[in-house]
């Protein structure tokens, strides 16, 4: 107990009173526990009026009501609180630290829930201020003169001598003695209503007894209520059978209190310091212009600082733009995202099981009924192109529709069964991953269904109808790697691409449908698909294009006639899509691409997407077809570079056939293998094409029109829209 004396040389004249008072206060706080948030003591609150009050209240029992008032009410109105006034006049508790130490006590009952501090005791904590303000406030400032301050100044005048005088009233009872009886029950009724400006009335002894009994009864109740903070009137805890009074609370040792004080200092300074330092660094970096501009892994330009205008301010764009800009362009963004992803990986474990994040979902598998649809055999017009509207007819007459099913799938050789992949696949991020080490493979699935396939086929049919018999139209939705390598535990994910391609082909009229699944399946064990990227590798493109070449009846040299070039370290998009999986990062693909023998005689002209302006590409080889400098995650851009262009390729081939390709990125890899097959090739991306497609084909003398691309894209709603739009725009 003596440790609680304030140190530092301040000898209070009321030392003993102080000690006694402190003891009494501690005695009152016997059932308190302390909150971790603050070290202030708490009370076990009363039961709530809300639900458990069984006895209906009668007006006579108004006295307990104040207890149930909002605890905070005690505070502001407490300026006419007699206890308050007494405290103010009592200069003893002036050091906030000693106050704290006086009130601290070790938790009494660990079975109690630690209740939050509902601060009645901030009354006491505020005393130094109050005292100060009181003495400073003689001027009746009308604007500021609230009732409270009026009361306070009245009180001050009534109970308190001027500040200049030594603050020792002649006869001074301890607060505890003036306002509490021997049992510790309050003597005065607590009156929070401001309208009653009379002196507080005394609480009769009988009522005090009652209050005590009530408090004891409620203290025994099991459920704690955080709401009720009994007001000053029931600060005392009468005899509680469950928790016997502990007359001498174990005080917090001075050393501990000191340590706590130091820790508070460290905590505040370090945490706030961290925030301020980081804020300052960010500010400086912003001013210096060192914020991130684009994200390689997300393949997009990052947000820019928004332009200011009155309208953008009022619509919220400006302010939201600033917030987005601030977060989007944090320097070191990639590293932070990696750390964040690494942290979230700690949330659980994978025992070869599936990680689902909601973007991948099970789909119903549709099976193409091969016997239901009859298709006509489409004949290929191999005549060279003419620019006149009436083409030379060297066509074979198309045979009448056979009743027996004839697929327009030109692959008539035996269907290769794709073996089941017994590896355990897991979903990371947006993709499926299986395997380890150099065998780690990422897969993306396709959600194309039969209805979309039908619409895709109809879009192509319309092209054929517009172009007429002189142009051969081909449909080539390219399968993704998941068509071959999907682990069996994932077979519910995504739709069966083979069936969907068959369905597309079954709905085509006059259009040659190409299904290269079988051709690729034959070479599944070779590196035909990238493991870390959603594209196929050039070798896979070779086999896929082979199916096209057979259908188009053009020359197609064997793979050995190509020059092989290899680049290591191709880390594709799956690194990002798997949420930065390290397994993928550490096992990038080897990118092997092939240059045709006749590359020296190939020449390319690059046009913009309206086919009106030429431009010089940068970084290509002599032919213009290959960008040999691409490396790392850009390897796939080795062919033809970006997508928003139209490339006209002239080859040494002499069959005078002109191929127009509307493709997405899968088509890029196919082009280098067609330099022996068509005299001229026009490569266009259906997403970046600004003129009318039919006119374009007529203009360039197209004889063969190929729609090639990854099935998940070209056969999606967006893809079908593009294909329809470029035909009519």
């Amino acid at each position, binding site marked *: 107990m003596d440790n609680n004396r304030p140190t530092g040389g301040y000898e209070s004249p009321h030392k003993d009173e102080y000690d006694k008072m402190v003891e009494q206060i501690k005695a009152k706080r016997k059932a308190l526990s302390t909150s*971790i948030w*603050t070290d202030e003591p708490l009370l076990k609150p009363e039961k709530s009026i*809300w*639900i458990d009050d069984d006895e209906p209240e009668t007006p006579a029992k108004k006295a307990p009501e104040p207890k149930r008032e*909002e605890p905070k*009410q005690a*505070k*502001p*109105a407490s300026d006419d609180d007699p206890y308050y006034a007494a405290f103010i006049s009592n200069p003893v508790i002036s050091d906030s630290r000693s106050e704290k130490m006086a009130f601290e006590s070790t*938790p009494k009952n660990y079975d109690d829930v*630690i209740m*939050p*501090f*509902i601060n009645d005791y901030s009354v006491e904590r505020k005393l130094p201020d109050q005292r100060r303000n009181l003495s400073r406030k003689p001027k009746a400032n009308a604007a500021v*003169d609230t*009732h*409270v301050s009026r009361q306070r100044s009245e009180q001050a005048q009534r109970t308190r001598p001027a500040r200049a005088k030594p603050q020792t009233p002649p006869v001074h009872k301890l607060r505890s003695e003036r306002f509490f009886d021997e049992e510790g029950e309050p003597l005065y009724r607590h009156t*929070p209503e401001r309208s009653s400006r009379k002196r507080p009335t005394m609480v009769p002894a009988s009522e005090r007894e009652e209050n005590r009994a009530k408090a004891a009864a409620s203290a025994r109740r*099991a*459920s704690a209520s*955080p*709401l009720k903070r009994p007001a000053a009137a029931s600060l005392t805890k009468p005899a509680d059978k469950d928790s016997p009074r502990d007359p001498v609370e174990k005080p917090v*040792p001075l*050393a501990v209190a000191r340590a*706590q004080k*130091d*820790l508070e200092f*460290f*905590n*505040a300074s370090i*945490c706030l310091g961290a925030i*301020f330092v980081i*804020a300052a660094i*960010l500010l400086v970096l912003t001013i210096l212009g060192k914020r991130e501009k684009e994200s390689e*892994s*997300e393949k997009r330009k990052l947000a820019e600082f928004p332009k200011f205008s009155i309208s953008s301010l009022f619509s919220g764009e400006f302010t939201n733009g600033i917030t987005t800009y*601030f*977060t989007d362009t*944090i320097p070191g963004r990639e590293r*932070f*995202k990696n*750390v*964040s992803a690494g942290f979230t990986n*700690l*949330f*659980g*474990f*994978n025992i070869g099981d*599936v*990680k*689902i994040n*909601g973007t991948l979902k*099970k789909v119903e598998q549709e099976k193409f009924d091969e016997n239901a649809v009859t298709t006509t055999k489409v004949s290929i017009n191999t005549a060279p192109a003419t620019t006149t509207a009436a083409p030379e007819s060297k066509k074979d007459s198309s045979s009448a529709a056979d009743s027996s099913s004839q697929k327009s799938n030109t692959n008539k050789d035996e269907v290769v069964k794709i073996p089941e992949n017994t590896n355990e696949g897991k979903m990371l991020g*947006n993709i499926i991953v299986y395997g380890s080490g150099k065998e780690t493979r990422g897969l*993306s699935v396709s*959600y194309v269904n039969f209805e979309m396939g039908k619409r895709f086929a109809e879009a192509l049919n319309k092209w054929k109808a517009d172009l007429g018999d002189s142009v051969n139209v081909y449909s080539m939705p390219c399968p993704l790697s998941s068509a071959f390598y999907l682990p069996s535990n994932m077979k519910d994910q995504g739709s069966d691409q083979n069936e969907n391609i068959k369905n597309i082909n079954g709905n085509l009229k006059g259009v040659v449908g190409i299904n290269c699944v079988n051709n690729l399946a034959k070479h599944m064990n070779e590196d035909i698909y990238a493991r870390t990227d*959603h594209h196929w590798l050039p070798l896979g493109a070779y086999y896929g294009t082979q199916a096209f070449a057979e259908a188009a009846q053009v020359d197609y040299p064997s793979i050995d006639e190509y020059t092989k070039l290899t680049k290591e370290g191709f880390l594709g998009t799956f690194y990002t899509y798997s949420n930065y999986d390290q397994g993928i990062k550490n096992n990038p693909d080897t990118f092997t691409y092939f240059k045709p023998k006749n590359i020296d005689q190939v020449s390319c002209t690059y046009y913009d997407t309206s086919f009106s302006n030429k431009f010089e590409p940068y970084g290509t080889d002599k032919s213009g077809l290959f960008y040999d400098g691409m490396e790392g995650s850009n390897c796939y851009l080795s062919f033809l570079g970006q997508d928003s262009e139209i490339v006209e390729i002239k080859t040494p081939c002499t069959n005078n056939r002109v191929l127009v390709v509307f493709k997405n990125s899968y088509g890029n890899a196919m082009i280098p293998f067609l330099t022996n097959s068509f005299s001229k090739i026009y490569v266009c991306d259906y997403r970046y094409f600004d003129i009318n497609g039919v006119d374009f084909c007529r203009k360039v003398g197209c004889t063969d029109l190929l729609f090639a691309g990854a099935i*998940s*894209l070209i056969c*999606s709603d967006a893809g079908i829209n593009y294909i329809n739009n470029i035909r009519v725009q």
Partner: protein
Amino acid sequence: MIFADLFFVYFFLPLCLALYFATKKIRYRNLVLVVFSLVFYAWGEPKWVFILLISSVINYFAALAIDKNAGTGKAKLFMALVTVWDLGVLFAFKYIGFFMSNIDNWFGLSLPVPKITLPIGISFYTFQTLSYVIDVYRQKVPVQKEYPKLLLYISLFPQLVAGPIVRYSTIANEIDHRKTTLKDVSEGISRIILGLGKKVILANSVGSIVTALFGKAADDYAAAASSTVLGNWYGAVLIAMWYYFDFSGYSDMAIGMGRIFGFHFDENFVYPYICKSITEFWRRWHISLSTWFRDYVYIPLGGNRKGKTRQCINIMIVWSLTGFWHGASWNFMIWGAYFGVLLLIEKLLIGKWLENTKPFIQHLYAIVLVSIGWGIFYFEDFKSLGRFFKSIFGFAPGGFTDLSTNSLFTQNIWLFFAAALLCTPIIPKLKKSLCVSAGWTKAVGMAGIALNLGILFISSMMLVNTTNNPFLYFKF
């Protein structure tokens, strides 16, 4: 602006703190707070900040008028008018669409259904302002004669948007006299960081699992169509944790920030999930709201003073309204009524039995019922709600469990246990019990500081990821 955002934490807050502590005079500090609060609100709602201002002006004058005519019929008149205004504003922004679409459905009309975007925090500050005026009317608090101070109370940015509904009596004194001690700063900043961590690390992560299990309202709860029995239970428990960490995280940040500025708000959440009954749950969950309804709806309706029947009716009314406050949709009202019924059952029928059973049963009973309640809260359309109920009783569309449910569970198992642990006060108690000597206090304290820094950095890094938007070449 929201709290869990890099711009707020690393620009707005330091700037506000720097300007706030640059002066010692309370007038300037209040001015700083008012300006920053208005900017804070206007940042997200550049148009609707005017509703806030207009509302505060109207309430200011009304309170003055009520105070001047205290006790007369005029005061009643002003009180009624101001109530109409405040609740009318809330109705107009929040409930008009719901009201009109229901009228259309019931009466077969086709009146236009206005689509109004809800200004953020309107539910909170309307209730807060109304509580002030009612308290003035009841003569419980002195009227605030200076408009800027009232505006400070209404718009104080820590509690404006999602914070505790602070009563005027709580901070009336602190508007004029407050002091920030070192302890306040230290505990305030700890509280802020804790709240940030709860929101960013726990709530966001748990929320994404829930959306994986159940889907979102925006996509008609697509994923729930293939959910399993265990999946639905798991999801309901997760929703409970999600909303707790989300809401209490914001409340923690609000209380912490208030603390640094010198305000002491009451606790809003006190470990609700260790409750032993539904009654206790509501004493620990969103305390400021339930006390608001108690003081300003339940008691005026008569409370428990007009007989048992009336009490039951009052309870049902109040709880339906409490539910309805949460959102303009029938399922919220059902949620509120669900708890009203449970409270009545506890009070009238099973109260005694419940008190005397084993604690384990009490806890289980409470958690099960609360989780089911959260399921009601989550599914806003009746079809999904019906499906949820069928699922939790064994008839789920996806069977008892499946691969995806199991994987979601194992994939997030540590997170689940950590979150469950943090729903209980075990860690604070542990910390308290360890601080037996200066040495231990120092050690525990240092660990606490390190933990604070860790939470701050990890949360910040996870916040960097919020604008992660890869150009999805697949366009699933």
